[in-house]
């Protein structure tokens, strides 16, 4: 049909350089990382064997997943009601104040926040003082799993709450009102109507903070000890202390694989649940 007209979309033209650059930014560093992990110091799977063959390193891997899971759970438990409240409360002052605190928390450099917790949890910090006054013999809370998880929740909570809020804001709250009109209590309506519809938002926000937690580095480095080491630190130490780029690259690739695997698993389960 000669009358069919093909046009080059000017939008696509305008964005083409940006998208190309993005692909370069995305693909080249990762490709390079993978190559390095397979070739430094020599070609082969040696680096991967070194990571996966060691009980210590495997334990670091499992710990990374476990601590990330704890941090995510904390965010979901604390952050979901907060996100719900700011999405649907009509008290504008409360909503604005909460959003401001979340926004400011998010913008405060993660380093400063980890540092603040170091002081708080440290030997001269107020928490130890309170615990000692209560008769507990504690010298420091630093280098404990509690410190790492609390610090990570502090970092991740604003991200979780703001992401969940963005989803909750589009929730049809009039459905809860309608359910109450049909005789349901607020709690029953939330459980049977709101929650099923909000679940994808909760899963999304949870996956996001989980994945961010997996790659964490500053917070565990400052608040945890050697026995709380996570994969991020392992990579950093391999470079800065031992200059072992190949090993670090292999650990980095493994971290990415774990991330992608867990993310796909969650998405798959969530989709399957919705289909059902």
């Amino acid at each position, binding site marked *: 049909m000669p009358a069919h007209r093909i046009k080059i979309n000017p939008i696509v033209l305008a964005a083409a350089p940006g998208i190309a650059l993005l692909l370069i930014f995305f693909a080249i560093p990762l490709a390079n990382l993978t190559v390095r992990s397979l070739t430094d110091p020599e070609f082969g799977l040696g680096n991967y064997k070194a990571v996966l063959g060691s009980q210590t390193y495997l334990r670091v891997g499992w710990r990374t997943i476990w601590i990330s899971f704890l941090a995510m759970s904390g965010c979901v438990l604390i952050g979901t009601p907060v996100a719900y409240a700011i999405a649907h409360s009509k008290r504008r002052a409360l909503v604005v104040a909460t959003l401001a605190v979340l926004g400011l928390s998010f913008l405060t450099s993660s380093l400063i926040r980890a540092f603040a917790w170091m002081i708080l949890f440290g030997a001269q910090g107020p928490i130890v003082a309170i615990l000692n006054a209560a008769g507990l013999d504690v010298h420091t809370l630093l280098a404990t799993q509690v410190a790492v998880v609390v610090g990570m929740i502090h970092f991740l909570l604003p991200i979780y709450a703001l992401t969940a809020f963005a989803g909750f804001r589009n929730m*049809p709250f*009039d*459905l809860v*009102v*309608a*359910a*109450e*009109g*049909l*005789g*349901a*209590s607020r709690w*029953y309506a939330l459980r*049977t*109507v709101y929650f*099923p*519809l909000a679940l994808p938002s909760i899963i999304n926000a949870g996956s996001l903070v989980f994945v961010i937690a997996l790659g964490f580095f500053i917070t565990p480095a400052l608040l945890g000890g050697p026995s709380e080491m996570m994969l991020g630190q392992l990579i950093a130490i391999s470079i800065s202390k031992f200059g072992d780029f190949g090993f670090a690259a292999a650990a980095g690739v493994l971290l990415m694989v774990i991330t992608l695997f867990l993310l796909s698993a969650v998405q798959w389960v969530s989709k399957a649940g919705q289909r059902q």
Partner: protein
Amino acid sequence: MSNASKDCGSPPAIQISRLKKCYGAVEVLRGLDLVIPEGSYTTFLGPSGSGKTTLLRIIAGFASVSEGTVSISGVDVTDRAARARDVGMVFQNYALFPHLTARENVEYPLKVRRLPREERRRRALEYLERVHLAEWADRYPRELSGGQQQRVALARSLVYGPKLLLLDEPLSALDKHLRGQMQDFLKELQRDLGITFVHVTHDQSEALALSSLVVIMRDGRLEQVGSPEQIYLEPNSRFVAGFIGNSNIVCCSVTARNGRLATVKLGDGTEVGVPIPAGVTERLGVGEKSLLLLRPEKAETGYRIDTSVVAMSGPVLSTTFMGTHYQVVFSTRHGEITAHLNNDYAPGQSVDVAWRAGNLIVLPAG
């Protein structure tokens, strides 16, 4: 303004006393008294901002009152939560649960009431059948058309047997053809069930077509309450007359009164005797400025000039074919007048039409 409560028999479906509603400093309902009889199809009619939806939400229990009381079937429910009022409500956007099928949606209020699964299923299907959707029971709302979603919402609000169904502009999202069908369906449904329907609308023809009682609201007050015939034929005010149907309005003054009959004089000296609507008797004293309403559809051609008609004549400004009639606008000493006639008139042609005294409506000015 209030319509009298029946003393005999069962209590009215809804009784509202001295109801006020403020949002901050803004009074959206300014002291209402209203009785809605059991088994009626009542419409709240008014322009946007008149408070009709707020009134409905207060009856449903979704909004609190600032002052006054609301009784349903004789029980004061002012302080009762929506879920304890046992009324049905159909929302403007239907408010169906998107993650549940049509049947599960209809089952929801029964599940809340802990009915056994079999009973639930049976009754849900019974009501889906009533709204002609039995074969769509397993579809999700997104798989249904607007009219079908509307009917699922109806079934869901009726399945638990409320004595009162509230409908918030339920037809405004539907296109004109479907709206007509749904009007017929709603009217029949109400007749079959025999329960009270209260329906909010801003469309005067919808209100006339559906209801046994029309409540006209304006600025948070009740402007007039009555049957469609009363509202149309005996409006209390210029606002009601103008809101219900299109009208020509001509200034006049009352020169004599004789019981329910007034003699009014137009600007050109014509005098005519007209019946006085029930609600405005006190406000139409002799010598007072008043208004004469001439409904375009009551215009007649080929008349005899005498004291029983008001005649208007002048050159035609425009003629529009409306299907059922021609809408002829012509210029007279009283301003532009519109008449619905059966013949086409060319612009500039002179036309003579008249209204019989019995078809005229007289109203106090302002």
